[in-house]
């Protein structure tokens, strides 16, 4: 039985081309990029090439790119870094209720340390309420951080509109593009953002490497102090193979994107249609069209997500859930609650996230298997009476 991997939003396999690009930088070209001797020139050039590639892909200049250890570090760096640098100017931050924990818990941390944070609500499709944004802005607002697209329900936020408001009020604007970069077009000038987080492993790059775009002129305090690397914005001997891998992943990603976007969006819509038609009391979470091409999130009434996943796993199908049972807290997904689901439906959600290797056949197989699983679990449920 072939495995069917439908959890690309959690992580993707590293592309073999990416691994190949990385390999020489482990054993052969190992020189520390900061050193002056000639064997370090190769590594120095390699990371600058990767920087150039990424900068070009998002419409930035290479001096605006800082490599990090992943999406979480980028988010922490952006938010804590701007909050600290501008602390004399103000201590109010605006974010949304549906951010990734890397943003949300960073904001909670700042709240406990002298900052005020407003958490904007979203509508039932998971889109930030723009009228609430205008209302939330204060004289001392220094940062708005709202994600480009949500990792659980795929809803794409009106980042350009948010940026316009941020610009009008001269407030720094960060967006977490971890789920979008490599999947849909991401251009820092079109989006008009000041800071933007990305993470390598979400688009077939290596784990443990990411980047933060920092628009020229944006004030930011480092998160990791020390050496002079990354123009003194992020200390530590550079993860050369990781950075090279990230660059290579960027090179392959945008090339396939526009066709691949369409293909995935079609697969997504076909699958959603089949499931909603064949399984009663199921509902799509997130926006019907303003949605990541690879994201499917469905709630099944009366049953719990982890038990669905375990059943899928027996068929070699990998997916994820917003149920509390897959986290270490007792609360189900804050995102699903924010769009108005009751706890039972939030616990009963499953996310299928597609990748470039996902086929119609795979999804058809899942669509065939899933109704039986749902039926079996519902027969066992005291909350569902057929």
């Amino acid at each position, binding site marked *: 039985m072939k495995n069917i991997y439908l959890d690309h939003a959690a992580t993707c396999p590293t592309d073999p081309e990416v691994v190949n690009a990385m390999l020489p930088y482990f054993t052969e070209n190992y020189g520390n990029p900061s050193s002056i001797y000639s064997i370090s020139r190769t590594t120095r050039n390699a990371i600058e090439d990767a920087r150039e590639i990424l900068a070009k892909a998002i419409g930035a200049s290479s001096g605006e790119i800082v490599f990090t250890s992943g999406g979480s570090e980028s988010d922490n760096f952006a938010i804590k870094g701007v909050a600290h640098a501008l602390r004399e100017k103000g201590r109010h931050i605006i974010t949304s209720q549906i951010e990734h924990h890397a943003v949300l818990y960073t904001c909670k941390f700042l709240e406990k340390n002298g900052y005020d944070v407003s958490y904007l609500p979203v509508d039932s499709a998971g889109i930030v309420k723009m009228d609430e944004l205008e209302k939330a802005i204060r004289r001392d607002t220094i940062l708005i951080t709202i994600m480009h697209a949500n990792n659980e329900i795929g809803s794409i936020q009106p980042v350009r509109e948010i940026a316009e408001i941020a610009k009008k009020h001269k407030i720094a604007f960060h967006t977490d593009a971890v789920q979008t970069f490599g999947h849909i077009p991401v251009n820092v000038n079109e989006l008009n953002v000041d800071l933007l987080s990305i993470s390598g492993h979400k688009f077939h790059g290596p784990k443990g490497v990411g980047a933060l775009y920092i628009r020229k002129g944006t004030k930011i305090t480092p998160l990791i102090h020390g050496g002079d690397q990354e123009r003194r914005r992020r200390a530590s001997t550079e993860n050369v193979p990781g950075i090279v891998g990230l660059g290579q992943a960027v090179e392959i990603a945008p090339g396939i994107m526009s066709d691949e976007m369409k293909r995935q969006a079609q697969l997504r819509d076909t699958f959603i249609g089949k499931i909603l038609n064949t399984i009663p009391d199921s509902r799509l979470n997130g926006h019907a069209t303003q949605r990541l091409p690879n994201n499917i999130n469905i709630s099944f009434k009366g049953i*719990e997500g982890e038990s669905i996943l*375990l059943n899928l796993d027996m068929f070699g199908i990998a997916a994820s859930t917003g149920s*509390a*049972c897959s986290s270490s807290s*007792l609360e*189900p997904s804050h995102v699903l609650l924010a769009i108005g689901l009751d706890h039972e439906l939030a616990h009963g959600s499953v996310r299928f996230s597609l990748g470039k290797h996902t086929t119609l056949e795979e999804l058809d197989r899942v669509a065939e298997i899933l109704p039986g699983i749902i039926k079996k679990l519902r027969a*066992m*449920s*005291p909350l569902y009476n057929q």
Partner: protein
Amino acid sequence: MEQYSEKVMDHFTNPRNVGTIENPDGIGRVGNPICGDVMELQIKVKDNVIVDAKFRTFGCGAAIATSSMATELVIGKSIDEATKITNKVVAEALDGLPPIKMHCSNLAEEALEAAIKDYREKQKS
């Protein structure tokens, strides 16, 4: 997440005694959909011995497996013996549960308590 034991997976995959009993002598319903698990246990009692038990559970793998195991443990036991079946007993019978899942075994203990309480109250009336 830590892994489930084989026993847990067995009881999750092939849960024993799923369903309801006609004219049950005791019903226990515990848990809360807010927390992600609800269990209903029904028992049939003859001469103070639990002769049948059936469950329905909304919950994760651990919740379903502990429910299933609890019914197995309880069938054939006297009411008094059954009250001694604690969450620990259930978890041990399943070769343990991952730490963050231990609370699921409470569900089974509580459902059993509730069912026995219900049975006793019905006896009185």
